[in-house]
Structures are given as C-alpha cells and as structure tokens.
C-alpha cells in the first residue's frame, strides 16, 4: 500500500542497530546465552507462562525488560526422581503437600461435556514513562471439549493505579484514562465491555513443546516418577523434531527441570487432566531440586495456599500456589527476588505478574460463539 508514502519518505528514519544491539535486545527478551551442554539447531528459548514475568538487569539507563526465559542459567538436567527430598521453606509444608496430594488423588471427578478454566491475568507495569504503577486485569476463559481445545474468551476487567501513592501520582498527571495497554481506550484488540472469542481447530493440547491428544492427556501416568519419564520422553521427541526442522539455529537447550516445570505447570493449571494426574504433578514438581515448598503463602488476592517456588536465575521467582485443602490451583505468579527498577514502588513481597485461576473443572455448559465466528472465518469474533 503506497498510501501516505510521503510520510515514510520525508520523516527521519531510524539508524540501524549498532553491532550487537539486536543480540542484546534478544538477550533482554529471552534469557541470556550461556555455555551449552548441547547447542544444536535449537531456537532461542522462551519459557513458561510466568517465566514471561522474569526480568533482566538494566543496561545503562534503559528500562529493565522482563525476560521470556527462565534464566535457568547454569542449571543442568537434574535427574531427580519423585523420591528425592523436597526443599521445604516452612515447617510441615511437605506433610501438607503429601496430604493434599493424597486427597486430590482420591477425588472422583466425572467428566462432563466441556472443560472450563476461568482465569484472571494481572500485570503491573509503569505508566507513561515510569511516573506511576498501574495494575491491569484481563479475564480469560479457556474451553476444551471432547476433541481438545475449543475457544478462548478474553475480556477486560480494568486498570487502576496500584497503590495510594500511584493514585496520587496519577491524579497529579491529570488523571489520564487507563485502559490497559491502551492509554486512551481506543485501538484495542479487546475493547472494554466486549469479549473477543478465539476459536481453535479441534486437536492436540500444546503444553510447552509437548503435544498430547485428549486421549493421551487422560491416560497420563498417575505415578510421579512415571509421569516425569513420560514428559521427558515426549520432550526429547519434540526437541528432535525441532532440530530436524527449518527453525533458525541459535539458542539453548532447556534442562530437564525446565521441561518438567513448564509442562507440569500447564498440566496442573490448564489442561483437563484427571485429579490423579494432577496429584502426581504436584508430587513431581515438589521434588525438583530447585523447587521450594512453602505453606501459608498468600496469592496476589490474599488467598492462602501452599506454594511451589522455583528460582529463575533472574530477578523473579516463579511460583504455583495451590489450595492447601483441595490441591486446586489458585495462581501462577512472578515474584521479584531483587528490586526491579521499573517496578519501584511495588510493595515488598508483591507479585509483579499473576495468573489467578478463578474456577477450573468440568461443566455441562458450552461456549457460545458469536454467529459466524469459527476457526476458519476471519469474521470479527467480538461481542
């Protein structure tokens, strides 16, 4: 399209990046490169859901930017088994985990028509060049049916100054409208008051690099050691596929711990797994060598739970908080472990990023797509 080409012609252009700048930017987005145990044709790594909240150190005066990777740095394959000793941060936490996993494993959970996971995604970020922090909340509902993932519904909850001090700074700035990533409430993929529907073609579940059919998901091992072996076996196959693909080279090979943590996290918080599998996931994750178990933590909303926390090597730790009575997931969160410059003012101990699980389970309800909204159409699936 040549419309407005005059603007492209006349306005000053941007100098090309200086040597190394793109690699530096890449390292800021992904985790820094490190010596490899194995360096083949694996694309640069991007980690799990909450790994996205991890950050990297500030370079010069630049704003620190979260890492996608887990910054697992020098971690190597752990080779841990479910019989390894868990790291415990609070007295009795391991016993609490055992008890809750036992209860979960005994739960009967009859399958119904659809699987629904209602989540709230909470992100805290600086507004208008670090003047103050805001908290943005989006709602996502993930539906899956007998044939696999079905649709994701996304809607906005709202954006507010984070603290009283942030509110004062916001008012001092003239109380600009806060609309999530869109500062004047236009131009948004998900406008306020409406829901965007993203239908999926029926098929496999994509849990990080591991693909599982609905049947395979239901038949996952209920023993933590076997489950771990299954995940690593499937991971190795996926890695081989990537090595043999045309994917551009460069990047790191994730450790076994990375694979188990990321896939386990999604088995626990997203996919329609059986309670017995979820119990096995809890035990499997708790025995990873760099995972700590802490009882009595509170998620971003103050809900008490049992946390499995894994340091990322960056300024954030990832944690999964589960209900200590039922074992149901409450939240997946990114917790700063050191001061993060662009989040100055974030209260100590607060999460920078959180995915709250509001409700998860089988239902006879079904998603209702707007008329004409299908995986094949390009019709706008907004309602």
């Amino acid at each position, binding site marked *: 399209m040549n419309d407005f080409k005059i603007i492209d012609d006349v306005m000053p*252009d941007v100098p090309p990046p200086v040597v190394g700048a793109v690699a530096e*930017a890449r390292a800021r987005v992904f985790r820094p490169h490190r010596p490899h145990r194995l360096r083949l044709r694996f694309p640069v790594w991007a980690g799990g859901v909450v790994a996205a909240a991890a950050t990297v150190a500030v370079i010069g005066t630049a704003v620190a930017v979260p890492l996608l990777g887990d910054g697992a740095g020098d971690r190597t394959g752990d080779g841990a088994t479910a019989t390894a000793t868990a790291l415990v941060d609070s007295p009795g936490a391991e016993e609490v985990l055992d008890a809750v996993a036992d209860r979960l494993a005994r739960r009967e959970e009859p399958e119904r028509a659809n699987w629904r996971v209602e989540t709230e995604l909470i992100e805290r970020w600086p507004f*208008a060049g670090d003047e103050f922090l805001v908290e943005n909340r989006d709602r996502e509902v993930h539906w899956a049916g007998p044939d696999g993932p079905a649709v994701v519904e996304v809607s906005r909850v709202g954006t507010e100054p984070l603290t009283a001090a942030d509110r004062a700074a916001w008012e001092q700035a003239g109380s600009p409208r806060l609309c999530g990533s869109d500062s004047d409430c236009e*131009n948004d*993929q998900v406008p306020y008051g409406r829901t965007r529907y993203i239908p999926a073609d029926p098929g496999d579940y994509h849990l990080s690099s591991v693909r599982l059919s609905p049947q395979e998901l239901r038949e996952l091992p209920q023993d933590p050691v076997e489950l771990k072996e299954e995940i690593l076996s499937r991971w190795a196959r996926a890695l081989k596929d990537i090595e043999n693909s045309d994917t551009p080279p460069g990047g790191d090979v994730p450790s076994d711990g990375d694979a188990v943590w990321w896939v386990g996290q999604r088995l626990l918080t997203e996919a329609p797994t059986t309670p017995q599998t979820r119990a096995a996931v809890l035990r499997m994750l708790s025995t990873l060598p760099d995972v700590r178990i802490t009882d009595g933590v509170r998620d971003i909303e103050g809900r008490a739970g049992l946390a499995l926390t894994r340091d990322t090597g960056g300024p954030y730790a990832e944690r999964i908080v589960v209900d200590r009575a039922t074992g149901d997931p409450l939240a997946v969160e990114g917790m700063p472990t050191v001061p993060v410059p662009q989040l100055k003012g974030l209260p100590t101990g607060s999460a920078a990023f959180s995915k709250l699980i509001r409700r998860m389970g089988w239902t006879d309800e079904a998603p209702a797509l707007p008329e004409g909204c299908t995986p094949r159409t390009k019709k706008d699936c907004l309602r």
Partner: protein
Amino acid sequence: MITAPDEVSSITAPERFGVVFDTHYEEIRRYIGRRLDLDIAEDLAAETFLIAFRRRDRFDPARGSVRPWLYGIATNLVGRHRRAELRRYRALAKTGPPPDDDGHDQRVVDRVAAGVTVGRLSGALARLPRGERDAVLLAAYGGLTYDEIAEALGVAYGTVASRLSRARARLRDWLGVEL
C-alpha cells in the same frame, strides 16, 4: 493475509518464539523509533515481544498474521507515551530533522521542493487525532493494508477506511498537497 503454518507454530510453541523475534524485531523497532526517541523505542520494541509472548493464547491465526498483531501491540505501547510522541513532533516541527539523517535529504528532495518538510509534516502529525495518526503511521511506516490495520488496531475495516480518509483530507488541507 494467511498466516504461514510455521509462523503459527512459532507463536503457539513457546520454544519457537525466538523465530517471531528474529523475523520481526527490527521492523518493530524501526516503527516505534520513528514515533518515539530511540532509547524508549528499543525498550518498547522488546516489551512488544514480551507482551506477545504472555498473550500468545490470544493470537488468532484466523484473523490475520503475526505481523499486524505485533504492530498492534507496539502501537498500544506507543500510546502509553503519547505525550512524548507529541513532544517529539513539536521539536521536529521547530528544528527539522537531526543533522545526521543523511539518506533523508536525497530521498525527499522532490517532496521538500513541494513544501512537505519534516517540520511541517511533524506539526501536522501532532495535530492528527490519535486514532487517525495510528492508522496513518501503520500504513506509512509499516506498509500495512487496510485489513491489517484493522487487525492491528482491533477496529473494523470501515473504521480504518474512514480514519484514513479523514486524515488524508486534514493533511491535504494543512500541507497543501495531495497525499
């Protein structure tokens, strides 16, 4: 635009997200860097990819390709710095392009002869309503089609058409040339 299967798998499989970065980082950096100072632009370019990663479940290949989706995220991030963008245009309106903008003079000699200078254009861009400016600059800098702009901004095709039409009329009035 139909999204290539490889591009979809790059979004859905997080291990392959590096491909999305490699393919699109420089153009996203350039787009933001033409609207904001470069130090801010480089941060926001990186943040564009972080947001895309976090929200990758929301990428809908049926609605378009990865490229307009990234431009949409970048545009919304620019929106958080609207005052800085307007300050930049006003500064350019007063001082013209930076002295090291070499390629520019030769490239646009005809345009300048026609009276469309960096200063006048910057002043005009600053006066455009944000929605129109976003649409215009996605077309000008990103080369996005109407469909892609609609996808990037999350608005209807007709809205894009009317924004661009209004913007074209305003710019013609302010600059005295047909765009």
